[in-house]
């Protein structure tokens, strides 16, 4: 306490608390002592604060407290007795207490998990500095029948927009880079997540350098910026800046900087940035003009100057389109920009806020985002529903159980207990139950977190004490709900007159029962909807995964990056197909299952009409492709073995024939308008097959021969997977010993297309059955209480001659009425909801009567089982025992 004036004073709240709670003549001395104590502690430390607060609460002792209020309660030990009574009450109704506690624990734990998931989804890209000013440009095009919105722009537009619009502070492009295999100390490291980037990307996203200088990060050719993770992978703890990173294709990079790793909740994902100067497509001197202007492969990010209105800026964009795009439309379709627009076509750029990319991006072509605001909403509502169901149990069991406590309350009232102390007793009971539930929920959260991470494909480390403040949420929600749940029974019961309360069987009023049954109806309606939902979703996804894609996809192995084989590609292929386990092999540029295939146009020139412009996908293949994939030709012929002679031949799919409106497809001339200037002649027609997820209807497909294949596919004979794989590995090791073999199954690639839906499915299933078990728990509790209250009635009925069956049926009917009502509400509701969900699929299942009825009947059956457990017990009791229980 040498220099008291320079130190920070103790928290004000402590002073206030003591001055309010303590006798005034004692308070001043205490506050002074506490300040002096706090000032002597090490400054600014968390532990000091803790010690201070410990002392503050320790000071609140009877000698110091004011009379009245809290002080008086403490003096008369009322609080202690409240606790004693609450504990006794809870102990007396063990079953109810256990059900309540476990229901709350389950409900809260799932709510915490769902909350984590939802908040994490919502937090995407919000952490960047100036995130409000960063936008991604998107391109929307409508041309003839084709409509598309893509998160991509052309190579030149970043510079153009930056030059033309002073509102844009800077603009930068990124582009996918082919995978790079780095050579370090003669070891190979394959890196797939490298992207091309302009220097400006660094200031736009304010990446932070760990080593090196970011100002010159990507300004020179052959420069690369690594993330910390990749740098550690390649160089360990060394500072790699200035080193030369060699790639196995002979090129090399100079490492200019190492930046901090990207947070997981970022839509940008890369392990290294390489300069766009080396990207052939960004250089107008190296690619055809039309391709330079129409190949939309770049993501363009812009940072606006502060206070620029993006909507106004978008409108402003219009003024430059004609100037820049007129030459493009002329080269593309012979029309001027004016004519292009006059035909009703549009081509324009827009700004998508950075924060919306993860959840709201619903472009035709995007390629990154995995989130969906629909799922976020879906899960939020499931979370709220589950919590609601848990607390409905709580309310129901408390109100139903309170009837059994009427005598206790009445006696207390007669003895002179005040209404407020009775209310306090009930509230305290419900708070106790909910807090015990909270403690259990915390346990569940921590122990199940790894499984939840697997389920949701997330990477949470701490469920409660993270930046989302879930602990606060849990505490507030639990205590708030406990008060809500406790307040109704406490007021309802404590209000009655003791004379009425002591009269047996009068207190369970009709309204009370009505509310209870209403809540049970709600619970089961929700359960039925959720189960139907999970059933339909499962079946639809299974349908999608197993749907016939029109080609054989079960028995195909893919070998990527066959460039690595150099000149021995054909040798590789022929050696492998010679083996017993493999029947066909083909070389191609792109696979039907690759989720990203550039859409192009094709039109038919034969009749000199330009109406036949059709959006289609182009597969670059060889003459073995059809055999390898088991795709049948319906007309015409396959490519000949001399691919060069067939270099202007084309095979199209039936849907392309239909889309083009060709009567006589064989011999038709078709031109592609994506930079390839030459025309193709159709030589064959194939059956339709799907390219991607069946969310999309099948697009017309054309196959053209390639001389620069990048992948090889092999069809292996069933049951020979291991042998086929071993064979390929062995031949690869012989022919390309220095290269990494990349082997994959087409089925696995296909499965990856459904990844996000599969996750949705498993998370949804999990919470569905959780919700069901919560409502069953509740029903179990309620039926035990209700039947307990009717023990005397059953006894009398039995004495008068009712059989066990009759009694069970009577009690069951009474208890199943709310479930029946839930069926009536739940079935149509689930039909409507699922019908809406399915409408987003191009190919979908019928919901079917079974999917609707089965969950409802399942719920009913389960409810009956649970109820019968109690009713049978009660009906089989000897009336002599039941009637003497008073």
């Amino acid at each position, binding site marked *: *306490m040498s220099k008291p004036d320079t130190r920070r*004073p103790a928290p004000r709240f402590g002073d206030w608390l003591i001055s309010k709670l303590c006798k005034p003549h004692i308070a001043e*001395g205490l506050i002074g*002592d506490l300040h002096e*104590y706090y000032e002597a502690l090490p400054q600014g430390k968390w532990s000091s604060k803790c010690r201070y607060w410990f*002392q503050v609460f320790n000071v609140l002792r009877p000698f110091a407290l004011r009379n009245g209020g809290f002080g008086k309660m403490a003096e008369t030990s009322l609080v202690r007795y409240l606790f004693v009574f609450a504990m006794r009450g809870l102990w007396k109704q063990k079953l109810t207490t256990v059900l309540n506690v476990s229901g709350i624990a389950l409900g809260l734990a799932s709510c915490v998990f769902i909350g984590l998931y939802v908040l994490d989804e919502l937090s995407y890209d919000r952490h960047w500095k100036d995130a409000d000013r960063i936008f991604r440009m998107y391109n929307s095009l409508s041309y003839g029948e084709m409509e598309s919105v893509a998160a991509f722009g052309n190579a030149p537009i970043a510079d153009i927009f930056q030059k033309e619009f002073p509102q844009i502070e800077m603009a930068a492009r990124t582009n996918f880079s082919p995978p790079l295999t780095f050579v370090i100390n003669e070891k190979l490291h394959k890196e797939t997540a490298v992207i091309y980037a302009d220097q400006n990307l660094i200031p736009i996203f304010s990446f932070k350098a760990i080593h090196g200088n970011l100002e010159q990060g990507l300004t020179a050719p052959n420069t690369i910026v690594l993330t910390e993770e990749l740098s550690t992978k390649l160089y360990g703890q060394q500072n790699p800046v200035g080193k030369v990173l060699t790639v196995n294709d002979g090129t090399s990079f100079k490492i200019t900087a190492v930046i901090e790793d990207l947070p997981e909740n970022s839509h940008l994902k890369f392990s290294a940035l390489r300069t766009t100067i080396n990207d052939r497509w960004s250089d107008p001197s190296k690619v055809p003009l039309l391709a330079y202007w129409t190949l939309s492969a770049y993501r363009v990010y812009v940072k606006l100057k502060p206070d620029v209105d993006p909507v106004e800026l978008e409108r402003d964009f219009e003024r430059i389109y004609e100037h820049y795009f007129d030459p493009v439309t002329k080269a593309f379709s012979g029309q001027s920009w004016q004519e292009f627009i006059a035909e009703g076509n549009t081509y324009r750029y827009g700004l998508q806020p950075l924060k919306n990319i993860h959840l709201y991006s619903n472009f035709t072509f995007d390629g990154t985002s995995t989130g969906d605001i629909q799922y976020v909403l879906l899960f939020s509502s499931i979370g709220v529903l589950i919590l609601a169901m848990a607390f409905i149990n709580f309310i129901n069991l408390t109100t139903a159980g309170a009837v059994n406590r009427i005598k206790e309350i009445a006696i207390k009232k007669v003895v002179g207990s005040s209404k407020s102390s009775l209310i306090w007793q009930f509230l305290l009971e419900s708070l106790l139950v909910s807090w015990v539930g909270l403690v259990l929920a915390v346990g569940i959260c921590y122990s199940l977190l790894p499984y939840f991470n697997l389920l949701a494909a997330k990477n949470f480390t701490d469920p409660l004490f993270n930046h989302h403040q879930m602990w606060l949420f849990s505490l507030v929600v639990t205590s708030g709900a406990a008060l809500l749940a406790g307040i109704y029974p406490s007021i309802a019961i404590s209000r009655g007159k003791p004379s009425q309360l002591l009269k047996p069987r009068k207190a369970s009023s009709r309204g009370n029962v009505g509310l209870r049954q209403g809540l049970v109806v709600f619970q089961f309606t929700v359960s039925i909807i959720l189960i139907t939902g999970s059933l339909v979703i499962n079946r639809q996804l299974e349908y999608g995964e197993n749907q016939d894609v029109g080609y054989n996809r079960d028995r195909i192995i893919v070998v990527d990056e066959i460039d690595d084989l150099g000149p021995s590609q054909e040798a590789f292929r022929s050696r492998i197909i010679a083996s017993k386990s493999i029947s066909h092999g083909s070389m191609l540029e792109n696979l039907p299952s690759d989720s990203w295939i550039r859409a192009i146009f094709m039109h038919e020139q034969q009749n000199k009409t330009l109406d036949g412009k059709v959006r289609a996908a182009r597969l670059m293949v060889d003459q073995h492709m059809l055999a390898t994939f088991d795709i049948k030709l319906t007309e015409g012929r396959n490519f000949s073995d001399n691919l060069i002679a067939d270099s202007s031949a084309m095979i199209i799919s039936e849907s392309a024939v239909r889309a083009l409106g060709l009567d006589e497809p064989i011999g038709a001339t078709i031109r592609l308008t994506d930079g390839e200037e030459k025309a193709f002649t159709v030589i064959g027609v194939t059956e339709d097959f799907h390219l991607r997820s069946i969310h999309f209807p099948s697009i017309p497909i054309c196959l053209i021969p390639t001389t620069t294949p990048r992948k090889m596919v092999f069809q292996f004979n069933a049951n020979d997977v291991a042998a086929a794989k071993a064979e390929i590995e062995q031949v690869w090791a012989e022919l390309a010993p220095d290269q990494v073999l990349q082997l994959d199954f087409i089925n696995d690639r296909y499965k990856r297309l459904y990844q996000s839906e599969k996750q949705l499915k498993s998370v949804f299933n999990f919470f569905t059955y959780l919700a069901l078990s919560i409502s069953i728990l509740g029903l179990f509790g309620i039926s035990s209480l209700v039947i307990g209250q009717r023990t005397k009635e059953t006894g009398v009925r039995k004495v008068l001659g009712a059989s066990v069956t009759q009694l069970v049926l009577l009690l069951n009917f009474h208890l199943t009425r709310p479930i029946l009502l839930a069926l009536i509400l739940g079935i149509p509701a689930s039909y409507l909801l699922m019908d809406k969900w399915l409408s987003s699929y191009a190919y979908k299942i019928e919901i079917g009567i079974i999917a609707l009825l089965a969950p409802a009947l399942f719920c009913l059956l389960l409810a009956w089982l649970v109820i019968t457990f109690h009713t049978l017990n009660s009906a089989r009791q000897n009336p002599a025992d039941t009637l003497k229980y008073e």
Partner: protein
Amino acid sequence: MRHGVLGEFEELVLLIIAMQGGESYGLAVRNEIAKQLKRKATIGAVHATIARLEKKGMVKTYMGDPTNARGGRRKRLINITKAGHNALAQSRDLKLSLWSQIPSLKPDSGSFNYE
């Protein structure tokens, strides 16, 4: 509450109050206990004890003058009363008398010899 009888902690606090003369107050007593006895008492415990001693009439408390320290708050100073002094003396005399009646004590080893 038996008047005139001191508990163990009460006696300690009272001794320290006496020792510190008129300058004694809650935190000072606590710090002295920490220093001399290596024993951690909470501020609350010390103040409660002082309140009890006051009730027994062994100390008197009064508010000191405000100073710049402690945010200008006054200290609650403690003075031992005659009754407090008597109680301490009584307790000491009683203990000394008991000590003198222990049959044989080996002063060098500090342990008792029961032979």
